[in-house]
C-alpha cells in the first residue's frame, strides 16, 4: 500500500469532467484554429495596423492555451497551487525568450544586409 505523506491527505477520486463538455471545448478550439488560419490569409493593410495579423494570431493562441490549461488540463478544478506551478514555468519561458531576443536585437546592426543567394532563390521559386 502506498504511504500517505505527513503533510497531505490523499484526494478522493477527482472531479470528473463530462464527455459532452470536453467535446464542446474541442469544438471551440477547432473554431479558434479556423479563425487563426483566416487571420493569416486576410490582408490587414486596409486597417492601417500591419502587425494586426500577428497580434490577432498571438491573442487567439493565448486564449486557446488558457482554455486547454483550464479545462483539458483540469486546472479549473484543481488546487490553486497546481495552477501556480504551471504559470511559474511561464516565467522560465519569458526569461529564455526575453534574453535571447534582447541579445538578437542588440547585434542586429552587425548583420549583413540583404538576402543571401539561397533566400533569393527560394523567394523567386515562391513567386513563380
Amino acid at each position, binding site marked *: 500500500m502506498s504511504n500517505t505523506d505527513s503533510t497531505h491527505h490523499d484526494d478522493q477520486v477527482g472531479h470528473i469532467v463530462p464527455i459532452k463538455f470536453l467535446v464542446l471545448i474541442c469544438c471551440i478550439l477547432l473554431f479558434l484554429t479556423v479563425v487563426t488560419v483566416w487571420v493569416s490569409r486576410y490582408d490587414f493593410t486596409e486597417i492601417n495596423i500591419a502587425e494586426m495579423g500577428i497580434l490577432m494570431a498571438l491573442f487567439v493562441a493565448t486564449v486557446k492555451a488558457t482554455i486547454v490549461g483550464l479545462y483539458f488540463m483540469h486546472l479549473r478544478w484543481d488546487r490553486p497551487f497546481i495552477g501556480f506551478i504551471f504559470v511559474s514555468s511561464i516565467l522560465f519561458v519569458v526569461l529564455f525568450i526575453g534574453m535571447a531576443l534582447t541579445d538578437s536585437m542588440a*547585434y542586429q546592426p552587425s548583420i*549583413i544586409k540583404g538576402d543571401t*543567394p539561397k533566400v533569393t*532563390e527560394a523567394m523567386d521559386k515562391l513567386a513563380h
Partner: protein
Amino acid sequence: MFSTLTSLLVTTTQGAPSNFWLPKQASTVAESVDLTFFVITWISYFFFFAITAALIIFMIKYRRKGPEIVVQGPTHNTILEIAWTVLPLLLVAVIFVVGMRGYLNLMEAPEGSYDVQVTGQKWSWTFEHPKYGATQVAQLTVPVNTPVRLLMTSNDVLHSVWIPDFRVKMDVIPGRYTSLWFEATAVGDYSLACSEYCGKDHSKMFATVRVVPIDEFEPLMVKLASEYEDMNVGQLPAYAINRLYNRCQSCHSLDGTTGTGPSFKGLWDRVSKGDIEFTSGEKLSSLLGEATTYGLPENYIRTSIVDPQKHIVQGYLGSMPSFQGQLKDKQITAMIEMFKHLSELTDAEGNITVNPDGTPRQ
C-alpha cells in the same frame, strides 16, 4: 625548479615573457588581462591550499581509532555559515569588476584604428587591407604600436580568431560582422589559430600575424597591392588563384560542384568554344567571332566580371555582384589567365596546388 616557482609568482609587467601559465605578452591589453588572471589565480591558490590543508590535517588527526567510537561535534554555526557565504561573495564581486573593466577595454577599438577585413572560410584566413587594396592569405602583416581593428565575417560556418599572445579572441560568423582590436607592442611573428570547431581541417586553419616596424609597413602594403603590376603574363595565374579567387569562392567551386554560380573547372574550355547558353536563349558561340558583341572569349569573361547581368547563364539566377572598381584591369587579365591555366593550378579535388609566387604548394 626555482624558476618555475618564480614564474608561478609572476610578473605582469608590459612585455613579460611567457611563464608557467601564460604565453608572452605582445599587446597592450595583455598586461591587464594577465593581471586579472593572476588576481584570480592567487585567490584560487589561497582557497585551494587552505582546503587541501584542512583535508589532509583532518584525514590524519581525526582518523577513526576503533569501531566502537562515537563522536559528537558541532552540527551548525550560523555565524560561520554567513561568514563563508558573504566573504566569498565579496571576493567574487571584486573579481567580476576587474574582469568587466578589462573586457570593456577589449571591446572598444580606439578611434582611428587601422582597419583590416578578415574572411574566414573552411579552412583558411583571408586578410584585406582596404586602405591599400592589398590582400593577404594566411598571413596578416600589421604595424607595431598601432591599434588595429579586424572586421570579420565567414563565408561558410563558424570560425574564431584567436591570437593567444595578444589575448584577443572573437568568433567569426557567416552573415554577420564581428570585430576585435589589438595594439601589438613587439615586432615579431605570432600565431593566429581558429578556435571554433569548423570541420576536418580545423586544426590546420592557421595564420601568422607578422608585426613589423611602423616605417616598414606602408611600403610593404603598397608593394603587395601592386604585386601583380610588375608580373609578366606567365606569373599571373598563380597570383590570381591565390590572391583573387577567394572573392569568387563562395559561389564558384574549383572541383566541378555547381554552386550559386558555375564551377570554374573546365570553364575556359566551354567559353572558348562558345558552348554556353544564356537565359535569353542566345548561345555564346553566336556572340563570338568577327563583328560580334564580344569578339574574343577573353572579352566575355571580362564583361561577366564587371557587368554580370548582361548575359546570365541558363540555369542560374543571375545573383552575381559586379566587381567593377574592385579589380584593376590587370587583375581581371590575371583572372582570365587563371581560367586558361586552371588545370595546372589545382588538383582533381579542386585544391590549389601553387603558391602566389608560382612555386608548388606542399
